[in-house]
């Protein structure tokens, strides 16, 4: 349990001499530890991986997972409950539900990603500006006030209602729905990012950068963004699910946005819309896409939860393996040496390096 006390300080193992593989290995090891410690997030991670793999397969090699095109191919198996041949059953004219559900996966997922990424980038940028340059009675202050008030207006509406309203007013069609959800979504990121920026910009390392002579814009992008990004990424991951639900719901509510059934594309919301009347007779036609939405949202939420642990510096530190060699105090009475490595934990807190002890 005790360490040897070498006669000379041992060089720290971390350094540019480490190979690239080892460098990549560190975050992966961290990820593994997090997932192992939090079983639900492991479930989420596995599910997300499966979803991604399935999406790729649907796109590249649909036959491998049993997706048969054309999707609206009628067959003799009319209104069959789930069976071996048709894992999710068939609809009244014999269309295979499973193929349609799986084919919808890349559609829903890519649209949701596109929307979320737009919201993150656009909303995030606005949040950065509104949070960072917000001193009163300056141009930046005025701009940030304007941004915030607009954000407030958008946030005052429930997102689904707002998305529906915008989608309807823009006209019918998938691009219109996508734009509607994008417009509804960016304010959440603005508010989130702004809040984080407000708490980060008063930290002493930002002041220290100013003292070093770094220009304000550089400070924003070098120091602030890096320290703000963690909760945003977590939120983003969990947000994918919410976007999917909103998008599908809008498609569900507005008639004839997407035509169903079509030969080569599908979408979960439109499926539910199409089969909702026959729910009592053929429940699997509605349950299958509904379950697909549910599972996708769940996986991303669980993964996001686990990611939060990965990215929070305190728990991250606790999980990181610190098997690196460290210089113990040399036996000869040389000048003070530095021992790297986390210090002892303090009562009542997760191990942290400061505190009375």
């Amino acid at each position, binding site marked *: 349990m005790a360490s040897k006390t070498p006669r000379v*300080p041992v*060089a*720290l193992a*971390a*350094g*540019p001499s480490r190979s690239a593989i080892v460098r990549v290995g560190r975050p992966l090891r961290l990820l593994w530890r997090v997932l192992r410690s939090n079983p639900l997030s492991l479930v989420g991670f596995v599910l997300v991986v499966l979803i991604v793999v399935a999406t790729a397969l649907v796109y590249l090699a649909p036959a491998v997972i049993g997706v048969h095109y054309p999707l609206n191919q009628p067959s003799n198996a009319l209104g069959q409950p789930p069976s071996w041949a048709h894992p999710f059953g068939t609809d009244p004219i014999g269309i295979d539900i499973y193929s349609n559900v799986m084919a919808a996966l890349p559609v829903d997922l890519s649209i949701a990603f596109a929307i979320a990424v737009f919201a993150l980038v656009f909303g995030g940028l606005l949040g950065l500006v509104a949070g960072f340059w917000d001193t009163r009675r300056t141009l930046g202050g005025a701009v940030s006030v304007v941004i915030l008030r607009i954000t407030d207006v958008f946030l005052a509406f429930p997102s689904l209602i707002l998305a529906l309203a915008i989608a309807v007013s823009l006209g019918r069609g998938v691009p219109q729905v996508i734009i509607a959800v994008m417009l509804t979504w960016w304010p959440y990121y603005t508010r989130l990012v702004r809040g984080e920026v407000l708490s980060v910009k008063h*930290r*002493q*390392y930002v*002041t*220290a*950068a*100013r*003292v*070093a*002579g*770094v*220009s304000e814009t*550089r400070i924003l992008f070098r*120091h602030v963004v*890096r*320290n703000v990004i963690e909760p945003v990424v977590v939120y983003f991951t969990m947000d994918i699910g919410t976007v999917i639900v909103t998008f599908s719901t809008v498609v569900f509510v507005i008639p004839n946005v997407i035509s169903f059934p079509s030969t080569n594309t599908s979408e979960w919301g439109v499926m539910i819309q199409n089969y909702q009347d026959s729910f009592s007779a053929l429940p699997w036609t509605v349950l299958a896409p509904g379950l697909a939405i549910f599972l996708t949202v769940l996986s991303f939420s669980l993964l996001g939860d686990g990611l939060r642990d990965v990215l929070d*510096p305190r728990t991250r*530190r606790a999980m990181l393996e610190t098997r690196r060699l460290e*210089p113990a105090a040399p036996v000869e009475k040389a*000048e*003070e*040496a*530095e*021992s*790297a*490595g*986390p*210090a002892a934990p303090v009562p009542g807190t997760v191990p942290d*390096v*400061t505190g009375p002890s």
Partner: protein
Amino acid sequence: MTAPLLETESVSKYYPILRSASEYFGRAAPRNVHAVDAVSITVGTGETLGLIGESGSGKTTLGWVVSRIIDPTAGTIRFEGTDVGSLRGPALRAWRRNVQVVFQDPIDSLDPQLKVWQIVSEPMRVQEHLSRAEARAGVAELLPTVGLPPDCLDQFPHEFSGGGRQRLSVARALSVNPKLIVLDEPTSALDVAVQAQVLNRLVRLQKERDVAYLLITHNVAAVRYAADRVAVMYLGQIVEVGGVRDVLERPVHPYTKALIAAVPLPDVRRRRTRYRVTGEIPTLINPKPGCRFAPRCPFVVDTCRTVDPELRDVPGFPGRQVACHRAEDVAGVDPSTLLAPLASATEASGPSSVPRPA
């Protein structure tokens, strides 16, 4: 005589408090917290000026004003003879290579997302536009001077102990060879033994590089060791300034005496003493005229409450300036008189029926 390296002339910093409607419309006087009030200090090349005070003294604010992190409300700041109070933008950023700051909180002042070499070389890279390789080499050269191994370039701040992080801060400040470093409470987060190491190192670095220090702290012992001159601050004003040995051995101002008497020493005889100075440290909003220490001063007279004392010379104490009306009278009083013998149980000023433990 050459101009001192740094000189402030009547520098003030006021923080406004949220205005009521009557203040907004000009009916009532605006209220300000007088964090720093008409302070004039000088720091010579290569010397250390210690700034001692407790919370509310304004010492940290003054340090930030001097390093142009915040702007003064009034007064001039002169660096090497030139007025730097009005520098802005690129000119201000270029001037920054002359004055660097080591901040109080070693955790908060280092960006947790950046590696050591990025943090320490940041001032260098901004001022001199170095390449990545040059910056790394520069940091590797700099780290041993603060006692860190040169191969921790790619580590993160949270992997170091408190003393280690403090050293990183110092290394960062030294990276551009500034003429003045403002040290904001460099010892308060550290243990006694580590404090001694850090102070030794700071003094050594000063001799090697001829850099001046503005040492801001409440730790009297640190100032005793590291400073050449010391200024004592109370509620935004300088109350006493002079050579460190003189001020700490023969303090004139009652507050300096109170401060020195309050410092706990490992002396068993102090067990039977009680501290005579009473009163809390108030927050000053629109302070009234008169000496600010008057409510707590053991030597107070009526003048103290109505007339502002000026910082002036005191006969018999060369090189000393004190802001006290009664400086001549109280100069000879030793700080130990502020420690009275502990009252015996019969004289204790408590309730007569003292509750006993169960």
